[in-house]
């Protein structure tokens, strides 16, 4: 069996990076993001990237570090409100931006991985994002066409992997990671733990290993964006 386990993010990305490439990066906010691959991509010096990710990290963390280093030419996202440098580069015309409704973005990625180049949704009909898109009636309602998305590589974060690349995610850190695993020509998964074959329950594999070409055990800061708590008194 071809070995899928790599030593670190640098080695897992070896030979895959080139200027102008398209990268999908998993995560929602700072939750479930591929911290190790992002750092390695920054170190590599690769530039002019198109990055597909729901958000763009925050200033100085997550995808924000690629933005700060001016490696991103274009973002395809649904929300970038946590990032001042993003706003600055965008307003200065240094950065291209394509906003997608979050569900449309998620479905475009799933479609890309599932061999579906186009599909119709109601989301966004009558808004500025509908401009230039093909519209069609189904049962008297108007829908518009969205297209599938693929990437040269997908960098994703999971909780555990076995040696075949079967993945499980933890709680809401799942988010965009499973679809992106299917839509990258090569998918690099970074995980908290690599377990032996047979340790994961076959009924509950979130991403089958067929979608994962390279796996590393990463180190994670897991920064929290909005720590909100209640006190025992409130209960």
């Amino acid at each position: 069996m071809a070995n899928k386990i790599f030593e670190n993010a640098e080695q897992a990305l070896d030979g895959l990076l080139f200027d102008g490439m398209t990268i999908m990066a998993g995560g929602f906010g700072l939750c479930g993001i591929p911290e190790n691959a992002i750092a390695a991509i920054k170190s590599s010096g690769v530039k002019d990237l198109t990055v597909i990710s729901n958000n763009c990290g925050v200033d100085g963390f997550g995808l924000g570090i690629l933005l700060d280093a001016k490696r991103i030419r274009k973002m395809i996202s649904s929300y970038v409100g946590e990032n001042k440098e993003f706003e600055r580069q965008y307003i200065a015309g240094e950065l291209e931006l394509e906003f997608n409704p979050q569900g449309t973005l998620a479905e475009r990625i799933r479609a890309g991985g599932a061999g579906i180049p186009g599909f119709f949704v109601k989301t966004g009909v009558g808004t500025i994002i509908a401009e230039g898109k093909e519209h069609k009636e189904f049962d008297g309602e108007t829908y518009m066409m969205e297209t599938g998305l693929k990437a040269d590589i997908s960098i994703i974060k999971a909780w555990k992997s076995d040696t075949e690349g079967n993945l499980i995610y933890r709680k809401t850190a799942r988010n965009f990671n499973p679809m992106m695993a299917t839509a990258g020509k090569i998918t690099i998964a970074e995980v908290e733990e690599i377990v032996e074959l047979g340790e994961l329950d076959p009924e509950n594999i979130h991403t089958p290993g067929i979608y994962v070409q390279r796996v590393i055990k990463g180190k994670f800061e897991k920064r929290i964006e909005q720590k909100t708590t209640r006190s025992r008194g409130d209960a």
Partner: protein
Amino acid sequence: MAWTRDDMAARAAQELQDGFYVNLGIGIPTLVANHIPDGIDVTLQSENGMLGMGPFPFEDEVDADLINAGKQTITELRRTSYFSSADSFAMIRGGHIDLSILGAMEISEGGDIANWMIPKKMVKGMGGAMDLVAGVKRVIVVMDHTNKAGASKLLRKCSLPLTGQACINRVITNLGVFDVVDGGLKVVEIAPDVEMTQIVASTEANLVE
């Protein structure tokens, strides 16, 4: 006296029905969870991939892998299920969520909503808002009746880029409750001590009987 933010949330909570699956937006809609009436059991969806959202965690329960769509730390319940963003929005787009309660910058008498963009000023992205207003069975907006300059937020036609078209069912403001009906907005309820004249003066949208 016009309703406070908390009053508006409490009024919005009256819209909940037992067994409902509900998505609550950021701001006043989040407060709705504090006012769920006795005997009413609802399941909260968080569009980043969770059904059955629990309260904020105690300090020692905080988990970076467990956040809501507002990126706040939360907890799970015994009924909770987790899923991907694609599955989450399949649920939303497919019309399986009973009710979405969200804020707005403007709404129109035709049921349009604008809440994601102020050209050249606020360009953060729509997140899941467009999916929610287009997909959820019933959409209720909770917002102040007028903006800080005193201008009506209930308009003939939205001036800002739309989040969705003809998708709002009801609007709850500090002055009252309004339904989107043929020809305009219908006054369903008036906040205590608010006069109809004040509503008329504060509303650009056509008000119908």
